[in-house]
């Protein structure tokens, strides 16, 4: 391990930016705020590039101990940073995409009163995310983990005067905390059994333990608990409910946090803990099952949503499911590959959606869009590239990463054809709803403000104009293209969505990450060669099938939303209850409300508030006060002003004293 003294600077630079903007931003000019935010973030990006340039696999991994933290007996934790191939990939993705989105936010949030606050929070988020990614032990990672949750809360509820935004922020944070509980228990188990939270020590200790094929044991428990944490952070079943609500935040937030970086923290954590998972096959199976089910589940919800950001949100949940499926079948590098390409095209999708919303004065309901490709050519072009990427068309980025995952799901020793099949079906659905979005937004006639929804349903969705709180005072007039400060990042991300997948050709990416997933890599290599020998044919066949699924989705969307726009309404009507269930997200939120939220609130009100706080604590205080009053009320009667009663008390007291003295003097002796 080689020391690298610049590692700690990468997170600290955005922190400095956040501090400067946070303390001085209110009275600074917007130009100054912008400069501070972009310079510090950009500096982190440049530093990341320098580190990448000087990175050599021979001297990896790099580390740096910044300061002591905990020393408790034999247990110690320090503020240490770590850089290996996995961290390097994450580092470049986070700083790069983050920097682009910062530039975009300059244009998007310029008119907002809380501009300085937004930039400060974004920099703060970068700090925490980089801490998470560069951590050398689970506890520093947990700092980053919690910190990104905090930044997410602050940014989701950025327009905190709006009730729904504040509630969404709360929901995100609370659901995250449930996951964090699992994470913490896993950490405690690690401390107890391994005596350390440091990656190198934990993974070395794990190597000495046997593989738990029976599905019970310490490593399985740790793995499952880590998965609970990842499910919370990365919005998997059952803790995904916060992500669609998180769309209340400004679009750059959705792009950065809820597409490109924060939600991928769970995947990163699972990939980092690959040593643990590989020795706990049951946990891996659970990870794969959760990922696959989530992918399918979220995709089905996405086809009926009418808010453009909600479609993308469910799409994110679904794609994260793919990443977990990859990790669950042992293809960690494939999962990370998809994480990287997803950051490009999903970030781009959100930014482009933001550009669309910005251009039509704040409208987010797709039923009120249409035909926008004439008005916003650049947005249309970049979004098209992103849509083809996510659908999995070659030669765009998504094709390579998704195909890798599907192949590994089929061929890996932990995988099975069931995963592959569900993955292909989900790919078909993904392609369908993405192209549905594409057609509804950019083709047809502009259905402008106050247009009726062509499906004839009053579907549950957020349809208020100005919902993004972003209207420019242009009124509902002409839709227009966004300024270049916003289009620039779109173009860059579009380029990356195009070429980003080419890194994976020939297994170069997998080979680069191989030293990180050592134990897995050996098995991978063995299996890959076996797979290559026996199944190059199979692989090509499966590839063709998945591309075919993507085409099928495109064709279906074209039919329903371009050729015959009346058809969706009739299909929806004939499906009746099933359609309603899908539109209402399978009523999961209502179910959670009934099962967990309402009982908790009621229990808290009845038991804790009325029962404990009022009847015990308040009662104790109040009753001791009233007891004092009653006692003194009664004792007051001693002061009657009546001479004889005083004398009576004196006589009685005297008798007591005499009795006491006699007792002491006579009996005690």
């Amino acid at each position, binding site marked *: 391990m080689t020391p690298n003294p610049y590692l700690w600077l990468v997170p600290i630079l955005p922190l400095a930016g956040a501090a400067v903007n946070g303390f001085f931003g209110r009275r600074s000019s917007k130009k100054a705020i912008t400069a501070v935010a972009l310079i510090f973030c950009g500096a982190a990006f440049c530093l990341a590039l320098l580190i990448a340039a000087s990175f050599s696999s021979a001297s990896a991994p790099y580390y740096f101990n910044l300061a002591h933290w905990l020393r408790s007996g034999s247990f110690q934790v320090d503020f240490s940073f770590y850089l290996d191939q996995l961290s390097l990939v994450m580092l470049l993705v986070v700083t790069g995409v983050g920097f682009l989105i910062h530039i975009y936010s300059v244009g998007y949030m310029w008119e907002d009163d809380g501009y300085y606050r937004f930039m400060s929070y974004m920099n703060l988020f970068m700090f925490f995310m980089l801490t998470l990614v560069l951590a050398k032990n689970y506890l520093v990672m947990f700092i980053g983990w919690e910190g990104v949750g905090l930044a997410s809360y602050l940014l989701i509820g950025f327009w905190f005067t709006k009730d729904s935004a504040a509630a969404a922020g709360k929901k995100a944070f609370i659901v995250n905390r449930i996951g964090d509980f699992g994470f913490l228990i896993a950490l405690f188990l690690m401390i107890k059994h391994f005596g350390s939270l440091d990656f190198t020590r934990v993974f070395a200790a794990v190597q000495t333990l046997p593989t738990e094929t029976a599905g019970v044991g310490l490593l399985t428990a740790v793995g499952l608990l880590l998965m609970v944490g990842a499910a919370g952070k990365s919005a998997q079943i059952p803790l995904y409910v916060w992500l669609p609500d998180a769309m209340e935040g400004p679009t750059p937030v959705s792009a950065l946090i809820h597409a490109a970086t924060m939600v991928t923290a769970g995947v990163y954590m699972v990939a980092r803990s690959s040593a643990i998972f590989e020795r706990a096959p049951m946990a891996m199976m659970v990870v794969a099952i959760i990922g696959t089910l989530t992918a399918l589940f979220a995709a089905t919800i996405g086809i009926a949503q009418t808010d453009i950001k909600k479609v993308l949100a469910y799409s994110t949940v679904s794609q994260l499911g793919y990443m977990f499926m990859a990790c669950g079948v042992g293809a960690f590098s494939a999962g990370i590959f998809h994480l990287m390409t997803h950051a490009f095209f999903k970030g781009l999708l959100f930014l482009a959606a933001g550009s669309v919303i910005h251009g039509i004065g704040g409208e987010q309901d797709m039923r009120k869009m249409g035909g926008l490709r004439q008005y916003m050519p650049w947005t249309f072009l970049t979004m098209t590239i992103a849509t083809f990427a996510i659908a999995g068309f070659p030669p765009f980025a998504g094709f390579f990463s998704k195909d890798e995952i599907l192949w590994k799901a089929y061929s890996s020793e932990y995988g099975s054809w069931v995963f592959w099949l569900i993955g292909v079906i989900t790919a078909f659905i993904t392609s369908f709803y993405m192209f549905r979005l594409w057609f509804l937004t950019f083709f047809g006639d502009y259905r402008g403000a106050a247009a009726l929804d062509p499906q004839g349903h009053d579907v549950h969705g957020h349809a208020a104009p100005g919902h993004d709180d972003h209207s420019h005072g242009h009124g509902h007039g002409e839709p227009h293209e966004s300024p270049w400060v916003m289009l620039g990042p779109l173009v860059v991300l579009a380029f990356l969505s195009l070429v980003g997948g080419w890194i994976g050709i020939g297994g170069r990416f997998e080979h680069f990450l191989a030293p990180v997933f050592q134990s897995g890599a050996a098995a991978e290599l063995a299996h890959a060669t076996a797979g290559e020998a026996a199944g190059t044919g199979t692989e090509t066949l499966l590839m063709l099938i998945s591309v075919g699924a993507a085409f099928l989705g495109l064709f279906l969307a074209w039919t329903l939303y371009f050729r015959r726009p009346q058809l969706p309404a009739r299909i929806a009507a004939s499906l009746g209850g099933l359609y309603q269930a899908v539109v209402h997200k399978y009523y999961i939120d209502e179910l959670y409300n009934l099962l967990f939220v309402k009982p908790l609130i009621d229990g808290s009100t009845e038991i804790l508030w009325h029962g404990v706080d009022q009847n015990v604590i308040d009662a104790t205080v109040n009753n001791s006060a009233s007891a004092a009053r009653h006692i003194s009320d009664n004792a007051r009667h001693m002061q009657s002003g009546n001479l*004889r*009663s005083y004398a009576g*008390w004196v*006589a*009685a007291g005297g*008798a007591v004293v005499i009795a006491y003295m*006699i007792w002491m003097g006579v009996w005690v002796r």
Partner: protein
Amino acid sequence: MFHLILFLFFGVICVAGAVNLLVQSHPINSALSLIAVMASLAVEYLLLGAEFVAAVQVIVYAGAIMVLFVITIMLLNAGKEERSKGSRVAILIGVPGVLIGGVLVAWTLLYRSNMQATVPIGALPGDPADIARLLFHNFLLPFEVTSVLILIAIMGAVVLASRPEAVARAARKDEG
């Protein structure tokens, strides 16, 4: 023997007088029974040989203090005691308290100590010369202090008992 009879006789008078003081409703009757108590106490002192003390008892206590009481009763035209609600506490806990205290002390003194020693008649002759010797030698300071005390008491009594107009008239007479 004779000693015992004398003691008992005058002791009974003491107790009877004390009880009578409690029982009578008109204060003058209580005052007179108190005088009787004091007189028989003087005899008891004599039985113990305290001549000077007995004399002082009669002169000062029975002769001066009780006269003062009787004059005050006359002055204020005190009548029979009227019934008033009074204080329950005094009766309910004061009386039992003092009775219990008294019984305890008596019991302790009688059965738990060696007070069975007898005191012969005229045990300690306290003639004036001996008393004076003690008073002006060993107890000189208390003696002087009590004279100051009496002075203060006189002044206090005069001030407290005088009529307000009398004080005002005296003040005007001083100025004028």
